[in-house]
């Protein structure tokens, strides 16, 4: 009897439950449709991505090398960036990337700000503030997480660092070559900082991208003017050399092999410019091996200036300057001074870097890097050039190397 009573009671309960369940299925369907709509909407609208590197660096040398001396710095390699991509429609988009850098007092700067149009058939164009595709790492130089380094090899990446960005136009083309992809890029524009004005920049780059490796070749040229007044005056008065519209050329060849556990990347660059602008060759190579979440790396990097003789002050010119000083300086004084200035711009430097990357979680990596820097022939490399020149002039002793420790946490989000 009790059983029957329960059974009878269950019928209305079931009846009540059925429509409730039907509503739930309908709601689920609606939710799915809403999610689906949201996904296509998100594909078409605003996307926000960010990256950040927070780190510290210290050297055992009092004179700063690449901005690091024997007092710990938390700013030199720290930065944070936010990128907003707004897709107007399937063909048109606007991208802005804002980056705050520790070594610039955390001032925020627009690194990218451009309009992009997709022409179809693999062609696309950009106009606005874009990245000069000079180097292999140019386009993601700030995104520490995407590179194996706590600090990128400055021997290579210092040369054009002020000109990472330019204002101009970009035309890109990508095509399938069997299983590989070829990418070509042409840029035209202008870049300017406090010291130099680069006009009529033309940059070409070609990348062949396979599954496990890629090869990249890039050429850039520009008309270079020295606009920093003191530097321009020295070049004009002492060296009687031109300061405007000098031809400048830059080339980079890069190769990366990344099949899985093994990692290898290398790049060779050469910079040539007329007159007193330093010409330099550089290269780096990095081997790495992934062991689960760890990747130890070994890096060799070097830079060497190529036009030291051409930038020397002619003895006749030194004598003329000494004469004009009314006896305040002898010819020897002037030559010593010129040698000091030149030694601070000549380069002959090598880096051996031991690195360890630890992927704490997908999106966050801890990196420790120990760099052994050596400078040959009293050619300053990336040491502080004012301190170096002062030492030459005052017969002080310049360092022949430095050991630098860099630790950073790199994230993308």
């Amino acid at each position, binding site marked *: 009897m009790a059983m029957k009573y329960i059974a009878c009671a269950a019928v209305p309960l079931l009846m009540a439950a059925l429509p409730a369940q039907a509503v739930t299925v309908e709601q*689920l369907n609606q939710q*799915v*449709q809403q*999610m*689906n709509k949201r*996904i*296509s909407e*998100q*594909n078409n609208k605003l*996307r926000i*991505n960010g*990256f950040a590197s927070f780190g510290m660096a210290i050297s055992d040398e009092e004179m700063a090398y690449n901005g690091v001396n024997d007092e710990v710095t938390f700013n030199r390699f720290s930065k944070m*960036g936010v*990128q907003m*991509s707004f897709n107007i429609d399937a063909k048109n*988009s606007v*991208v802005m*990337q804002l980056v705050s850098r520790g070594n610039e007092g955390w001032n925020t700067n627009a690194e*990218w700000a*451009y309009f*992009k149009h997709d022409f179809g058939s693999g062609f696309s164009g*950009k106009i606005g503030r874009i*990245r000069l595709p000079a180097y292999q790492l140019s*386009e*993601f130089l*700030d*995104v520490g*997480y*995407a590179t194996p380094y706590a600090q990128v090899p400055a021997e290579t990446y210092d040369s054009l660092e002020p000109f990472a960005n330019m204002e101009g136009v970009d035309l890109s083309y990508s095509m399938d070559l069997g*299983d590989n*992809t070829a990418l070509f890029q042409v840029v035209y524009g202008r870049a300017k900082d406090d010291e130099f004005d680069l006009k009529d920049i033309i940059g070409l780059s070609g990348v062949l991208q396979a599954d496990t490796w890629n090869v990249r070749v890039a050429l850039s040229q520009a008309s270079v003017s020295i606009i920093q007044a003191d530097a321009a005056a020295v070049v004009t008065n002492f060296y009687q050399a031109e300061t405007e519209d000098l031809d400048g050329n830059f080339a980079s060849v890069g190769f990366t092999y990344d099949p*899985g556990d093994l990692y290898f990347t290398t790049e060779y660059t050469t910079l040539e410019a007329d007159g007193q602008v330093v010409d330099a060759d550089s290269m780096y190579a990095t081997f790495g091996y*992934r062991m689960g*979440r760890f990747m130890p790396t070994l890096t060799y990097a070097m830079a060497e200036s190529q036009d030291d003789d051409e930038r020397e002050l002619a003895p006749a010119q030194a004598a003329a300057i000494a004469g004009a000083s009314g006896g305040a300086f002898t010819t020897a004084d002037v030559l010593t001074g010129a040698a000091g200035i030149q030694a601070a711009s000549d380069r002959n430097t090598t880096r051996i870097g031991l690195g360890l990357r630890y*992927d704490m979680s*997908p*999106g966050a*990596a801890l990196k420790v890097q120990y760099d052994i820097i050596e400078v040959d022939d009293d050619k300053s490399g990336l040491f502080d050039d004012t301190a170096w020149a002062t030492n030459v002039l005052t017969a002080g002793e310049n360092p022949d190397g430095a050991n630098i420790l860099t630790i950073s946490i790199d994230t*993308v989000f």
Partner: protein
Amino acid sequence: MKNLTFKLLTALTLASCFALTHAGSVVVVGKGSPIGASNESDVVKAFLGKKKDLGGVSVIPLDQGEGNPARNDFYANVVKKSEAQLKSYWSRLIFTGKGQAPQVVGGDAEVKNMVATNPNIIGYIDESAVDGSVKVIYKP
């Protein structure tokens, strides 16, 4: 007796099928999608944003969240990239304005719901979750 042998064979075959395919991811589309069977290279390219279409039909790849078994299996055994490598890969594309990683949904059931509502969406699910609502276009 003959009947029993047949039944045994069937059971064994089923069991071995199950053993072979258990805990493996397959790539699926909605059952009415025009996207057909695809090879591994094309599927990998579609999920890495290197290919925007499969057999001429544009595709919207869909990821499962980190930690889901189907995702772990798919990226480890088909794409052959670790989560950290994948993050590095996408950050290079995202921060150069070249692409965006696929949208992420919760799990097998959500992928099945999504592909059912849009013929361009492709996703991966554990093979044991395959049912009549989806069509398998790639099985490792």
